[in-house]
């Protein structure tokens, strides 16, 4: 027997759901990509995108439409990716790097695909809290103060994480390019 009950939602709920779905529809590519940047594997990214939507819908009433949506979505995606990573680290003692990007994906042009795969692989080597700051600021172009607000951390922490994450990114890219040259 299904546990679901058919209920007629109030008009305000319907309009809120419609607005939420519209917003999600516009930004679904961004949510998907953000989760990939935050280290979610290709086989799990769709499920987690759905979780982001459920969370967005649950908190839609709290969203201030005067603010940009992407940082808000990033905050949700970051929390979901963090929880997912914690769960995975409990299940798998050692992280397994999926090479799913080599398969068919959203990227089409080969060169573009290689560059994107390189960035994603380099990001994988940065711990998630620092990676989130770097992705928000250096890729999504979000101001440092907004990064601090969305992630709920002090401004100083944003700066220190950003500095360290940049160093780690450069080191990861150098190492990967060296490994590629050595083959």
């Amino acid at each position, binding site marked *: 027997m*299904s*546990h*679901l*009950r*058919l*209920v007629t*939602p109030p008009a305000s709920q319907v309009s809120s*759901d419609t607005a939420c*779905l519209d917003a*999600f*529809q516009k930004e*679904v*590519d*961004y949510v*998907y*990509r953000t989760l990939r*940047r935050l280290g979610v594997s*290709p*086989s*799990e990214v*769709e*499920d987690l*995108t*759905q*979780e982001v*939507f*459920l*969370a967005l*819908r*649950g*908190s839609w009433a709290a969203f201030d439409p005067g603010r940009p949506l992407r940082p808000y979505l990033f905050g*949700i995606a970051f*929390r*979901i990716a963090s*929880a997912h990573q914690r769960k995975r680290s409990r299940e798998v003692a050692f992280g397994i790097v999926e090479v799913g990007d080599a398969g068919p994906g*959203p*990227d*089409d042009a080969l060169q*573009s695909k290689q*560059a*994107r795969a*390189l*960035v994603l692989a380099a990001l994988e080597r940065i711990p998630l809290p620092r990676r989130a700051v770097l992705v928000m600021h*250096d*890729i*999504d*172009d979000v101001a440092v103060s907004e990064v601090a607000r969305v992630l709920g951390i002090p401004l*100083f922490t944003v*700066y220190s994480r*950003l*500095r360290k994450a*940049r160093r780690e*990114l*450069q080191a990861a*890219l150098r190492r990967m390019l060296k490994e590629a040259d050595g083959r």
Partner: protein
Amino acid sequence: MSQPPLPPEVRALLDHEREVPPLPAAVRARLLGRARAALVAGNIATPAALRTAPRLRWAAAAALVVLASAAGAAAYGLRARFAPPPSRPPIVVPAAVVAPPSTPTPAASSAPADVQPAPPHAVETPRLSPADAARAELRLLRQARAAVARQDFAAALGPIAEHTRRFRDGRLAEEREALRVKSLAGLGRTDEARRAAAAFEARFPRSVLLPAVSKMPASEP
């Protein structure tokens, strides 16, 4: 606070990554279909909200267990102390056990206990809350999807069967049935895959997954 600038080649890579690539149409349709299905399914608590205080929830569950144990022990002690004389037959009433929502147990305990009969609603099969059900559904489908993604179709059938048993008309039933077709086709069970595809079409005639599902029995080995 000044930050050391990134080298130009790293900057260029990040600039390139800045552009969000569009998703393939099928993936996009699948994601939006699932989002719409979640809305149609009604009010559900958000996974993120559920995750905000897992320790609190565990603590609450542990406290409940301790309280229940303490109450049970106290009741047992009282019964032992004030037990009726042996000549009087004990009043045995089949206990209607109300299990916590997340741990399904038999509806009636085999151990006799002289407890008050539970109110009628308490003897119903315990149900998950909508939020727990949503998470349980998602967990099962995630297992099935992961198995299909690594082409381990036999492994996908387990969680699919489990989902069918527990959530026959669940909010992810549509995706489950699509995964069933895909798995059966992947295992070479073409006739069953065709039947499953026909059943899918009959049940979800307007599904965004229908074009893909219809092709599955023919396309897989």
